[in-house]
């Protein structure tokens, strides 16, 4: 029973981590507090839905289309809308405030477009909803896939960030955008690239989530909120932090639901969140580990 709960929890946590990793890049490196993040996820879900139901392309292959599209769209959003803001404000607080307002508007634009095209109804399809038996615990294959992707993306990008020269450049921008140009780093383009990678991760999350969650055009904010909690808890800009925080939240929710009461999952989530904020305000993997 405990083992089964832990496994289920880790798999749920994988979804949370997957959904949050893009935001941690966008917030940590590009310093954009992207309130439209969840709506990018929903847009990707719609993309996967259309590819699957209208064109019969299975969502796994669909990712090959949706993820680059997420990258391109985010790249464009940054270049057109956010770069002027970033250039204008050299201090972090100002940019945060501006980007919150700008992406708050963007949220409604994306939502509005989705409403016009798809209407407000619930969308759902089922893919890979087959039970997989792991040591006596039954888990849906699509959730396992989300977990696998979260681990792959998390570890992969973490390796890129810590082991490659380009990763060092990204981390330099994250650590100190004012000084990075002094060593010949083009902050604008690095931030734009990081923002776009974040968008690609959001798109990946959106595709996977659409396989097992019912979504509607107006649901983006739910994902933004969850991702924000994971990002703050894990330490802004830290992929391993997002991964760890996501898994912890999933574990806590499932353990509480299994052994205490499903009604207290939300309370437990925020309790853990609060505890982390009190003990380590910079997040689990805050600056020191970066």
């Amino acid at each position, binding site marked *: 029973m405990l083992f*089964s*709960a832990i496994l*289920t929890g880790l798999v*749920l946590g994988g*979804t949370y981590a997957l959904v949050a990793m893009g935001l941690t890049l966008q917030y940590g490196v590009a310093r954009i507090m992207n309130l439209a993040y969840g709506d990018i996820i929903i847009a990707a879900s719609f993309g996967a839905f259309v590819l699957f139901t209208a064109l019969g392309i299975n969502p796994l292959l669909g990712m090959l289309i949706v993820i680059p599209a997420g990258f391109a769209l985010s790249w464009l959003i940054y270049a057109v809308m956010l770069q002027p803001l970033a250039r204008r404000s050299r201090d972090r607080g100002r940019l945060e405030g501006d980007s919150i307002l700008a992406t708050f508007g963007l949220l*409604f634009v994306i*939502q*509005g477009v989705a*409403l016009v095209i798809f*209407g*407000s*109804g*619930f969308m*759902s*399809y*089922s893919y890979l*909803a*087959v*039970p997989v038996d792991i040591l006596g615990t*039954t*888990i*849906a294959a699509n959730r396992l896939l989300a977990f696998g992707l979260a681990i792959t993306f998390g570890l992969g990008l973490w390796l890129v960030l810590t082991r490659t020269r380009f990763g060092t450049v990204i981390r330099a921008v994250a650590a100190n955008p004012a000084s990075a140009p002094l060593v010949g780093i083009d902050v604008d383009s690095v931030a734009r690239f990081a923002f776009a990678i974040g968008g690609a991760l959001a798109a990946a999350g959106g595709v996977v989530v659409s396989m*097992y*969650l*019912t979504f*509607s*055009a*107006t*649901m983006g904010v*739910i994902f933004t909120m969850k991702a924000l909690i994971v990002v703050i808890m894990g330490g802004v800009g830290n992929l391993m932090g997002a991964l760890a925080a996501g898994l912890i939240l999933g574990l806590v*929710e*499932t353990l509480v*639901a*299994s052994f205490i*009461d*499903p*009604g207290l*999952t*939300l309370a437990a989530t925020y309790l853990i969140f609060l505890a982390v904020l009190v003990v380590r305000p910079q997040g689990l993997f805050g600056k020191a580990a970066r």
Partner: protein
Amino acid sequence: MTTISRRTVLQGMGVSALATALSGLPVLAQDRTAIRIGYAISKTGPNAAGAGISTTPNYLLWVDDVNKAGGITLSKLGVTLPIEVTEYDDRSTAEETVRAIERLATQDNVDLILPTWGTGANLASGPTFDRFGYPQLAGTAVTDMAPDLVKRWKHSFWMLGGGHDYAEALVALLVKQRDAGTINNKVAIASVADGFGIDLSKAATPAFTEAGFELVYDKTYPLGTSDFAPVISEVAGLGVDTFVAFSYPPDTFALTQQSVVANFSPKVFYLGVGTAFPIYPGIAGPNHNGVMGIGGIDPDSEALAAYFERHTALNGQAPDNWASAVTYASLEILAQAIERVGDIDREAISAEISSGEFDTIIGKVKLVDNQLRSLWTVGQWQDGKFVGLAHTERAGAREPVVPKPAWVPAA
């Protein structure tokens, strides 16, 4: 912070005084070219999905139906006029709903106002409808407080019953099955910790206990929960034949899919809002067959079948099998009441809605204490239709299929 100068206040008072004075002027018959109907509905925000299934399409269909038929006849003025619509988005917030209704009543001077979607928003806008004397035909509000509300707000009409109606009908249906020996005595309930779930479980828990059922699981889960694996795995080990979830649409769909994956297939599988949605069979695939839920329709009614066809043709989607037909019927009631009064006299229209008998797609209805008491309470998917198993006034349309067919595993 904004400071409000005395001048702004005085200007504002002047404008509103003028508006009040103008709104008092009678609209002359020869000036009237249309019957102006206004509504604020959730087009964005969390309520948009529900409103987009049960409410907005029916408003559109009704206006289309009425206008295609030439309009509504105002016999006292000797004219037949089409409907003209003023629509606002209430962005799923009750304050915005109230503000929009105030605007419709005072600025747009519409003749009648249709309500928004949902129990909470209809309760919140009740005082505003009442203040301006507009009839409120709440087609998507489920509340046990309706008998009290109609005393407080004389122009309010509650069309979808209360939690007790649905919970008690379900228990009565299950008692029959248990006494016939088809299901055992154990019941598990999971309910969403929000208005609907709380209302329903508050009514259901004592009803189940009084009927002698053993409630082996009775817990709530927070709004927005997406992973039900812990709930399902615990309930699966309790040996229940009956699983009841008072759930919202996303939960309803998730519970179905995850129960199939976990191969938890109880004899009675009952879910809340969303089971009656036309997309449910699409989501559940072959496994929708035999699933029970709140609502239901009469599969033998020709009027209803024609309504389903018109609705699908106009909106590109079928209506849901619970609140949609009731919402449309409430609009038919409104139109018939206007024609009988023969003028836009809101007081007289309200009185007619309250006392008259009306011919609607759900049959002949007459409100009891301003409430529609002719309701389908429990439905079940049978042969692609969500048929009514229990009704507040008459016998069910079909016999329940218990046990439901076992889940077909996903390919």
